[in-house]
């Protein structure tokens, strides 16, 4: 379990890392916290010829409120965001989800944007971004662009990020008054990849829920306010439409059951939490 040879580039600035990406494109990978990438490197699943380390870039180590969203820079760790949110108490969904991201130790290094870039179908942060309708800020040497979460996640560990682009920041919209937010997930052990994860947002007239861990990417649905059997039916339809798979940890049928039951529980909690 040793990586194949690669060059290591410690970027002195965002521009430097973009120059390197421009030059190396597909052959290079951005290294931030390394909590997914390092394992894949060691197993030689990923064999970049160069790693561009952005973890030391102060300009990317930020989490700030901008235009009704929390904008999190590419070097901000999950732990740092978590600490900040628990101090400010302003983002119930992210606050509820962050403790489920890996373990305390991995959150201290793992970055928020790294999790988005990795696009694990079970990961909590892509799920939250999807539920909230957030955006990914991509940047290459030539240009900057904003990609909505819906268009960013293309499939299992596959995203719309082009070879010469890096994620500069992601934007999690701030909670809206009169909306309720809830998160829960079911995993085999604490800190495991979720068998199914749920983020629900209940508004005055709508319910929105995103599900992770079932399809090949987080998927969200929005319904008009539903209750009782109508909500059960909607969740059952959603459960089947996600086309989950069997794997060694759970069957597709089990995951559908979670969408129906735990999904409902999370929606109801979001409704209770409406301001």
């Amino acid at each position: 379990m040793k990586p194949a040879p690669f060059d290591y580039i410690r970027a002195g600035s965002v521009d430097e890392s973009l120059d390197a990406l421009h030059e190396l494109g597909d052959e290079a990978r951005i290294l931030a916290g390394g909590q997914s990438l390092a394992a894949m490197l060691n197993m030689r699943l990923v064999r970049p010829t160069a790693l561009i380390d952005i973890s030391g870039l102060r300009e990317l180590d930020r989490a700030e409120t901008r235009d009704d969203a929390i904008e999190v820079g590419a070097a901000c760790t999950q732990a740092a965001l978590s600490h900040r949110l628990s101090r400010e108490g302003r983002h119930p969904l992210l606050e509820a989800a962050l403790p489920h991201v890996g373990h305390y130790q991995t959150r201290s290094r793992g970055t928020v944007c790294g999790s988005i870039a990795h696009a694990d179908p079970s990961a909590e942060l892509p799920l939250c971004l999807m539920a909230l309708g957030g955006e990914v800020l991509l940047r290459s040497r030539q240009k900057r662009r904003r990609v909505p979460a819906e268009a960013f996640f293309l499939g299992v560990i596959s995203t719309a990020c082009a070879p010469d682009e890096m994620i500069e920041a992601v934007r999690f919209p701030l909670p809206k008054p009169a909306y309720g937010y809830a998160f829960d997930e079911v995993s085999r052990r604490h800190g495991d990849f979720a068998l199914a994860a749920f983020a629900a947002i209940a508004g005055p007239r709508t319910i929105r829920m995103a599900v992770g861990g079932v399809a090949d990417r987080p998927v969200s649905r929005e319904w008009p306010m539903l209750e009782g059997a109508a909500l059960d039916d909607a969740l059952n339809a959603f459960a089947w439409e996600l086309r989950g798979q069997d794997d060694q940890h759970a069957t597709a049928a089990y995951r559908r059951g979670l969408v129906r039951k735990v999904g409902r529980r999370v929606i109801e909690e979001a409704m209770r939490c409406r301001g």
Partner: protein
Amino acid sequence: MNEVAAELAREEAYTGRPLKRVEDAALLTGRGRFIDDLPSSAGTLHAAILRSPHAHAELVSIDAAEALKMAGVAAVITRKDVTALTRPFTVGVRQPMQHWCLAVDRVRYVGEPVAVVLARDRYLAEDALDAISVEYRPLPPVIDPERAARADAPLLHPDVGANVVSDRSFAYGDPEAAFAEAPHVVGTTIRYPRNSVTPIECFGMIADWRPDDGTYEITTHFQGPFALHPVMALALKVPGTKVRIRTPPDSGGSYGVKQGVVPYAVLMAVAARVAGRPVKWIEDRLEHLSAASSATNRVTRIEAAVAEDGRVTALRYDQLEDCGAYLKAPEPATLYRMHGTLTGAYQIPNLTVRNRVVLTNKTPTGLNRGFGGPQVYYALERLMHRIADELGLDRLEVIRRNLVPKEAMPYRAAAGSLYDSGDYAATVDLAIGEGRLVGLLARREKARKEGRLYGIGFAAVVEPSVSNMGYITTVLTAEEREKAGPKDGAVASATVALDPLGGVSVAVASTPQGQGHRTVLSQVVADVFGLRPEDVSVTVELDTARDAWSIAAGNYSSRFAAAVAGTAHLAAMRLRDRLAPIAAQRLNVPAEEIVFSGGKVAARSNPENSLSFHRLAGASHWSPGTLGDGVDPALRETAFWSPPELAAPDRGDVINSSAAYGFIFDMCGVEVDRDTGKVSIDRYVTAHDAGRLLNPALADGQVRGAFANAVGAAFYEEFAYGEDGRCLNGTFADYLVPTACEVPEPEILHMACPSPFTPLGAKGIGEGNCMSTPVCLANAVADALGVSDIDLPLSPAQVMALIEPNEPPPPHAAAVEAREPGRALSGEGTATIAATPDEIWRAILDPASLARLLPGCERLEAIDENTYAADVTVRVGPVTGRYTARVRLSELQPPHSLRLDGDGGGTLGTGSGTAWIVLQPADGSTRIEYRWEAEAGGKVAAVGGRMLESAARLLIRQMLQRLEVGAAPAAKRPWWRKHLPLGKGR
């Protein structure tokens, strides 16, 4: 015994006190000396192992020429080296099968070693693995033991003629009559899964060969049994004295698993000899989880003849033991370790057993904490639970009525185990007492009233310790045993020495794996000499060339407290007996008058008449000439001990398989979440009788550890395999070991009926909960759900399937395709492409455009009609894998339908797939209907299992997009018309 009891009862005795572990300070401050920390000589080469991605294949050729050209690569070891320098390992049954330390003719499990690269560092060695090309000719694998046992199954070892390599039947008492007379026969069938207790530290070793005297020197955490030392010597074709094994001071855990270093020790010894330099190899986690070792999975049919009152009069076992691809010594020991104990804690006089050992294309099995106990007790204790249910009796009452009574001790069980001591009924009372059972019943009642799923489980087990080296030969017939000569006993050895300044040191042949030997041995030996534990230093590294050992030496079958510590006590007593006459001379009293106490040696009647212990202890070094006539020096004593109760199996296959037998009664309450199927342990009580406890704190630590392992076995851990034998748990993200968050604190209770057969009255305690807890938890879950068939691991999905076997149907049957559960990758879908069927047909049939259609195809070369060799780099997100593949088109119905087959291998393992494609004209476009099946093996399956199907779908999507681009005539582009219900592929 009386003398020992008196000794231990002395006020200043340290034995029996919960002293803190002397080992912990170093471990907790990062000063442990593990195998990978040890210095190695300059010029040491680092090994990396090329492993089979196939579960079953002929090994056609190995070409290492490219690897050998790489800078820093010193040698590549292949089958020609091992066939020249070794012979196949000795096998425990008389069958013509060969297990070499490296694959020779075939590979028989995923992860089997095929070649070893030796390079300047591990990185270079792993780089070079990619440059070795191996040609395999895949053979059909067989994974399921019941299927493997059938006559039409693919054969692993053709010379044997069957996959069942041993089939023995036994009868004790008169089981047939008991079954014929019984008013009730209750039975159940258990499929016990494969799992392991996984150490934090994987395997590792430094091997060297000394050309001057032809000695192999191997430093590794070899844990024994040392009967495997001759196995290594025989494999290396040298006398035992030419195989020198040394063990590192610290171990990152073994739980039996490190017995599995043996084939690797032979392999690396050969590698060092070929390279002419020392070789270091450290196993990584992927290697460990996929190919190191495992407990056996077992299919058991068990039946009981039962009287009206629930008393069991006879048991009938039919056990099918799956040992994986090879019978690795000492297997099939897992099956026979419990043989004498198959009637468990119960007084059941009649027993019949059929034992079959079957080989399958899975990792070979070996020692594992609990060793055979979990498999046996899961069947027996599920059966006791069912007997009560079927007869309408109280479950605890059925257990009680059958327990071996105190008065019967020592009790000879039907198949031969001699239960040394115990008061089982009193231990049950201890566990349920003080309102514990009443409280559990009340909690269950309350939960059920509230509509919650709550269950109570019980389990009573006998925990054997100190294995009889002869039990393994029960697999042979009496005639075969006679020919081979008797095997029996359980020799333990210990040495106690005095240094010139009067220091006491202890060495034992036990190779500790974290159990706190140094702490306990210093307590035991300090008491003999009237010293403090800190006055006694204990060395636990072992050197087979210098230390006293015998074949039973090692760290297994819970030998430490019962055998090893007891033998250290015996050695110390002997040394004391030598010191006493010297002291007697100096104090001018008879030797019988001498007492050792408080760091002094004194006359019993006049304690003032004394000398310090260290002066006396140094005397034989400084002044041997003045000891006087007939007084021998007291410098060092080595004691060997083997309990006389451990005889070889007799002609009727009666075997006392262990020296000591502890007892455990477990009781628990669990709650099952109706929505998620997750089980939470509400209360867990475990009452042990392990005889005399030498250090109660360490004993509790053993209980907690085994309990944690058992929680893993019950709910989380399984080595899962695909139908093709691919390993599905290559990382700890997929092989789920419970963490502190998942393991509650059990309530631990102790009862102490000392063993009359062990020197200190102690018995083993470290494996019992691995035997009792999985079935106790399963009994509780069965009680909560009201089900009678329940297999491990009780994953949420499995539990949920028991709670709710049927789910609501999809809303519109047509909109969503349902699929039977299964692990194979498969799916179907449709796509519409802006080209005519003819255009698409031409694109597929033309090699140049076919090359463009296949995602990542870098080279496509026709090797036959419609058959191509291709180099493909598959990309899924950042993951890339290079494959050399064969692509074949067949069942051609132009321009209507065809079949596309591909299979290949590469750096990430193997892959194969088939797609059936139908082209339907639709308005100048073409509607493509496709169905596909795929398999991926090797690394990518082992580490990325949960993403494989999504990845396969992604590749198909890439291919269809390319088809659209490639097939559509230029005029019809813009090609990026997304008619995609492509996501529908599944």
